[in-house]
């Protein structure tokens, strides 16, 4: 069976080569994992602040929330716009477009390969965290772990589709990364990376729930930290965003490719 030019053999080869490619840049990926320390900085800040009471979490709960937020971020980071912009500007994209495989799959594969390479570094940082904060140690039950894994994977899908939407605009404007910056700002403040959503005033929280951002970090992190969360509603909204974004991406992509070939002709 082929889905947009994808079958089992191609999946295996794509993932294998992208993983091998990423392994070459192991040092860089270690640094990248380290650049995700922001949740830990915020954790130390929240821990010592007078405002801790409004979060609705005790000390251990807060530790677990921010560690989970760190891990979710590690496995849902998307840098599709930057890779695509470079490929489009240097003309590397043209041969990809001629292949029977949808070029987006290539980017999916390289993200998955990178996540695999990042796994040991994320595990090492987690181990160090537990050494410093042994009280916060916990092992999620198998059920929770699978649910958290699923939620993180859905978060990655939403982030990937959002970036693909912006990347498709590359066909019209050569500077899509400027638009990506505009997307990153609400993500940073509304996703729960800097503060759990319970810290927000009710009105802001209600507004944030209508954006995809809390479902990129806050929801999966709560599932992983085993905190009370409406599982059904969370997964339903994640799915809704994917169902909404996927056709948009495909439509915009097709229109863009038509325009792109017109540019070369």
């Amino acid at each position, binding site marked *: 069976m082929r889905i947009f030019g994808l079958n089992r053999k191609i999946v295996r080869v794509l993932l294998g080569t992208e993983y091998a490619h990423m392994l070459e*840049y192991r*040092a*860089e*990926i270690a*640094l*990248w994992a*380290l*650049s*995700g*320390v*922001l949740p830990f*900085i915020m954790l*130390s*800040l929240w*821990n*010592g*602040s*007078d*405002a801790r009471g*409004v979060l609705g979490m005790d000390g251990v709960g807060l530790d677990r929330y921010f560690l989970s937020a760190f891990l979710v971020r590690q496995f849902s980071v998307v840098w599709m716009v930057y890779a695509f912009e470079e490929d489009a500007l240097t003309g590397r994209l043209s041969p990809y477009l001629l292949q029977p495989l949808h070029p987006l799959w290539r980017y999916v594969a390289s993200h998955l390969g990178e996540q695999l390479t990042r796994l040991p570094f994320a595990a090492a940082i987690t181990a160090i965290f537990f050494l410093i904060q042994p009280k916060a140690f916990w092992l999620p039950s198998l059920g929770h772990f699978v649910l958290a894994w699923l939620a993180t994977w859905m978060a990655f899908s939403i982030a990937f589709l959002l970036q693909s939407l912006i990347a498709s605009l590359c066909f019209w*404007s050569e*500077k899509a990364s*400027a*638009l990506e*910056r*505009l997307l990153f*700002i*609400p993500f*940073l*403040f509304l996703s729960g990376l*800097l*503060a759990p959503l319970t*810290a*927000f005033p009710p009105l*802001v929280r209600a507004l944030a729930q209508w954006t995809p951002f809390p479902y990129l970090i806050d929801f999966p992190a709560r599932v992983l930290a085993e905190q009370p969360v409406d599982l059904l509603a969370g997964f339903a909204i994640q799915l809704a965003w994917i169902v909404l974004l996927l056709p948009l991406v495909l439509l915009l992509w097709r229109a863009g490719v038509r325009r792109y070939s017109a540019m070369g002709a």
Partner: protein
Amino acid sequence: MGRYFKSLRRFWGTAVASQLEYQFNVVIELIAVGLSLLGSLFMLSLFFGPGRELGGWSWHEALIVQGFYTVLDGVASTWLRPNLSSIVTHVREGTLDFVLLKPIDSQFWLSLRTISPAGLPEIVLGFLLVIWGGHQAGASLTPGGIAVVLVMLLAGGLILYSLWFLIAATSIWFVKTWNATEVLRAVLASGRYPVAAYPAPLRLLFTLVIPVAFLTTVPAEVVLGRASAPMLWLGLGLAVGFFFAARQFWLYALRHYTSVSS
């Protein structure tokens, strides 16, 4: 010296002219700066409320710290990011050879070759925030005090530049150091909040190892009139030390640079 000034004028003139061609980007940049500041203020406000403080700093005092952070972020996007991120490209594509052949100091050329005016509104907004926060916190600055603030800000800028340049210079060996600067950016983000709000080990780290404290907290303390002289001297000493280290490291790196052709 005259040659350096003339080069700078030419460099920046052409950079501004070429950037203004992309008016769409300028608009996006302005929106991004506004949204980003709004988000930071919102995040900061979460720590405050009736009778709440952050590490002993009141809301208006913390706004001064936030203001200085905004100023330095503007400086980073005006000078540091556009210049220092291209060092990596020069090494990778072999164009560093051309830079080294020019009759001008290579560190000067690489550090000041271009400017991106997009960061300027951020600098202005940051200073406005400092002035407003300082006014609300009841700070009264004498001309001498303003001079000290500016000197400390310069020292902070020099520390920031030196750290960034040190990392960028390692690209001579590693070629790709884009992510190393990302680590630096993540740590620098801690400068949005007063250093006193962090637990003791981090406070030590942010004062001596990665001296974030001198970028924002110390200038804010000067504005509030509660800076201690030893801290100011330590800041100046670190700034000179880091700059000297960056310079020496660059000269050392160049001795190890094997150009593409050799």
